[in-house]
């Protein structure tokens, strides 16, 4: 046991020394202060993120990070969402066949009283907070192409609302209002499909019209003359970025709520269902 700990310590000290030495020999590109400029690649992004002078070479969004996340490197983000999706599916697979539905009906009468959840002050405040949180999170998500924020940021902020209701009241409170596993899974799938279809929209256009087009294309390119309109009624919507943000907002909010509903399934129920299960 002690040998193992000593081994861990020694290797960690080596790691620290290596990383420090690497940093002090400017392996991160700079030492001791950051670079005085940005790397060339970054200047490409900064220069072309919203540059109407080069209509074939811009993402049409003032927000360079969102532009990179959804346009320049959209593939990463699709699969980042896929990782989150697969994590939720993995959790669902661990919880397969277990649902709160039966408990929710038996708890119909017992949980509305003053005995459960936090105090009445917290409950009243949570009721008032819910629409405010949704308003703020929607603002964060829908302005993702203009100001910091975006689908994930907004969606995770929106998930505070059901989470607070879950913690302050109880999970049965949510279930009685129709926020249960299946609607949340549907919401999540709808969001993911929105992302997916937006990513492929231009390719379909290209296939129909017979011109070249790329997967994840947003604005027209030199060799791919179709794109999603960047302006709608003279308002900047940055083409696909708005659609991506909206879809991701729904998907993330649904996903988080789903995770927390799954986490709040009582242990007795799970144990009673898992015990005596057949396996290979």
């Amino acid at each position, binding site marked *: 046991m002690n040998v193992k700990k000593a081994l861990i310590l020694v290797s960690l000290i080596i790691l620290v020394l290596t990383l420090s030495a690497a940093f002090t020999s400017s392996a*991160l590109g700079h030492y001791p*202060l950051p670079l005085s*400029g940005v790397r060339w690649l*970054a200047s490409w992004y900064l220069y072309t993120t919203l540059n109407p002078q080069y209509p074939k070479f811009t993402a049409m969004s003032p927000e*360079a990070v969102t532009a990179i996340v959804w346009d*320049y490197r959209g593939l*990463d983000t699709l699969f980042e969402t896929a*990782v989150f999706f697969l994590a939720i599916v993995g959790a669902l697979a661990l919880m397969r066949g277990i649902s709160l539905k039966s408990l929710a009906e038996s708890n119909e009468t017992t949980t509305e009283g003053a005995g459960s959840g936090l105090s009445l002050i917290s409950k009243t405040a949570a009721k008032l907070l819910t629409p405010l949180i949704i308003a703020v999170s929607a603002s964060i998500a829908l302005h993702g192409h203009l100001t910091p924020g975006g689908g994930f940021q907004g969606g995770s902020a929106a998930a505070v609302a059901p989470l607070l209701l879950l913690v302050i009241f109880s999970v049965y409170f949510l279930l009685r209002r129709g926020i249960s596993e299946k609607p949340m899974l549907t919401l999540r799938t709808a969001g993911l499909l929105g992302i997916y279809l937006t990513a492929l929209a231009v390719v379909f256009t290209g296939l129909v019209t017979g011109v070249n087009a790329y997967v994840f294309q947003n604005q027209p390119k030199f060799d791919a003359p179709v794109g999603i309109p960047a302006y709608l009624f003279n308002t900047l919507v940055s083409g696909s970025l708005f659609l991506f943000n909206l879809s991701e907002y729904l998907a993330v909010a649904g996903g988080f709520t789903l*995770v927390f509903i799954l*986490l709040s399934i009582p242990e007795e129920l799970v144990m009673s269902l898992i015990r005596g299960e057949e396996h290979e």
Partner: protein
Amino acid sequence: MSEVDTFMFNVFIFSMILNTAISLYGIFARPTLIKKIIALTIFSDTANVLAIAVGYRAWPTVERSPIPPVLTTSEPTASDLTSFLQTAVDPLPQALVLTAIVIGLAVTLFLVFLTLQVYRLYRTTDVRKISRLRG
């Protein structure tokens, strides 16, 4: 004040490197799975801070700070873009870290569900007591 700035920035970077080591120690040496998960989140967060620090830039002038990589106008002129290029920080590490944070979150969530399942089957989360497998 350049020496002070340098010193402070290096304190920051070296703290992050030390954080990496401490959280790795937590992952490998602490016995409880929950503690390992906490340490894992700290570890991936530290990696993210390091990545963002790579994209930072020195102050263009003493008065003028670097700005986030977001244009604050929707109809930029050429001079807007030039000054944006001269002051904005690197957006690429930020986009990468955004992806990495969400991925880390997904993995952590899944590990939490697995830990719960381990507890259901073994009635403990201490890895020293979970020893059906010999490795």
